[in-house]
């Protein structure tokens, strides 16, 4: 058994491995999408409620945390299972159930101010992450319903508890079904 004959082969394989490894590393560094783009793509999947239930101050910060590997994908109750699944697909991770620590998924709701009880303290105005509340000091406030994301961040600052969350009535499209299958859609 002549081990001397093996040496050139081992050397060749080692050199090859080094070269290929370097090439792979180089390609990986080129192909690594810049972190900003990844944040954008994650942010696009989040529901933009800006509710902070994930314990980040908004959807984009949460997206940044996911992109940086600091947070898991199961922290968005408003997005629910759909969002978790979409995130899992995007990031090529196994989907997982929503973490109940961060809340449960509810049907979409909007804030409604009981205008008779509102004292016009303006404390809810800066709390709204999407500026969907209009009002001025000692004047009645109101929520612009189409722009309210239902984040509930205006509830804690209100000193008179005059804000309530009401469910959005689902669009009536599904109410009318094919006549032949009245039993199925009725």
């Amino acid at each position, binding site marked *: 058994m002549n081990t001397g004959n093996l040496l050139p082969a081992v050397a060749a394989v080692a050199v090859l491995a080094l070269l290929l490894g370097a090439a792979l590393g180089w390609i990986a560094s080129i192909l690594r999408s810049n972190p900003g783009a990844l944040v954008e793509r994650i*942010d696009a999947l*989040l*529901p*933009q*409620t*800006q509710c902070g239930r994930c314990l980040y101050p*908004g*959807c*984009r910060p949460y997206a940044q945390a996911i992109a940086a590997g600091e947070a898991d994908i199961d922290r968005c109750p408003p997005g629910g299972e759909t969002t978790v699944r979409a995130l899992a697909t995007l990031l090529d991770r196994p989907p997982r159930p929503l973490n109940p620590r961060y809340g449960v998924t509810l049907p979409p709701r909007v804030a409604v101010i009981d205008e008779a009880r509102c004292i016009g303290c303006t404390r809810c105005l*800066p709390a*709204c*992450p*999407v*500026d*969907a509340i209009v009002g001025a000091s000692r004047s009645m406030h109101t929520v612009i319903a*189409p*722009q309210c*994301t239902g984040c509930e961040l205006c509830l804690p600052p209100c000193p008179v508890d005059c804000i309530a969350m009401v469910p959005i009535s689902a*669009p*009536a*499209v*599904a*109410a*009318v*079904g*094919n*006549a*032949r*299958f*009245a039993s*199925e*859609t*009725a």
Partner: protein
Amino acid sequence: MRGGLRLDGHKSRPLEQPVIVAAPPRTAVVALDQGSGEDARPLVTPGATVRVGTRVAAGRGGSADLHSPVSGVLREITVLPTPQGTGRCLVIDADGRDELDPGIAPFDWQALEGAALIERLDAGGIAGLGGAAFPAAAKLATGREAGVDRLLLNGAECEPWICCDDALMRERAGDVVLGARVMLAACGAARATIAVEDDKPQAIAALEAAVAVCGDDRVEVLALPAVFPLGAEGPLIAAVTGREVPHDGLPPQVGVVCQNVGTAAAVARLVRDGMPCIARVVTVTGSGVRRPANIEARIGTPITELVAACDGYTDAPSPRHLIAGGSLTGRALATDAAGLTKGLNCVLVATADDLPPRGPEMPCIRCGDCATACPAGLLPQQLHRAARSDDADGLARFGLADCIECGCCDYVCPSAIPLTARFRAARARHRQHEEQRRRATEARARYDRHQQRIGAEAERERQAFEDARRRARDGAERSEPRSDASSGPDRD
């Protein structure tokens, strides 16, 4: 034509007698959405006095103008049942005098052309009476801009049970031909083809006689085989002209404007009598009514009154289904209180004899019958699989957008899968999803602006604080220069 079905028409009973002209309703319930999916904007307030033909609501793009079908007083504008579900309606109490609006007068259409004529048709509230209730003037205007060469009048009426267009063509062929000539002048096409299925020989004969009388050789009558759903816009255009409308396009792109024959008759009434579109012929049929008939009724006539004109419901104890439209593409009506709309061509009062109950749904066995029957050339079994798993990409890839919801696939399905209902639901979900996405984009933009503003405010406050501190320090330095100077050497 691709796919399709040959079906039993069930059309003979209403055609045994001429069209019944129903009395004007005591209370007209005029839906602001006449079937096109968009509300017209009301122009009158409760308490206003209206007459027959008074403009009561203005169209906005996807909806045509609305005119009062009766003379009387507008009671209220409120949400009531409509053939599409529920929607805002004008409730007009008739005074029984049936006075015409003073503005109603015939006009000389031959003196007008193109845009001017289209404007008059628009003001007449002419909407597609085939079912879509889309403003006819808008369609003609796009056709004119695109320079179409063919006006296609749809008298195919392929769906079982519906025969209002058949009755109209038999009795008012002259109106249809006059309407065709007016619309030719409006859209600038060279030729008008009235397409009728060959199971309506009387209608074809009447139309040919009317064409001969008017002597306009630009109008022709074409008999087509009676196959469902040949009366749908896409398949009809393909069958008559051999051109296929692109899946994301409109008929004018292939040089065709398509209008219903009922719409043509409404145009004829407008130019001849000046009467805007306030009435239509509707089929009331099925084993659930005593005397099925075609009825010419004012828009807004409650369906109860239409049924009463057919001698009422039968006493059959079997459950009745009230359906707006035919048995394949119709939609269930929750109540017979809804008012007649421009888009409602048939009220089918079906009993269990008419619509045999479906067996229980069974798994797809991949027989492919649905794909053979599909007139749009889709693969319903694949669409169904995507719809079940709520796979938006799959639905888009297999062409959900091109489904015309004709119901051929679930008619032939041996496993009794309610495919069309699933596709409708999937479409509704898709719309909801799009809406959510639109709202999310808006919320993101607003959140970004909010953050920017908060940041800018904090920055301003910090600046102000810094400025104040600097001013305070400068002020202190200026007010005690001497002590500073004297203290300096001391420290040394």
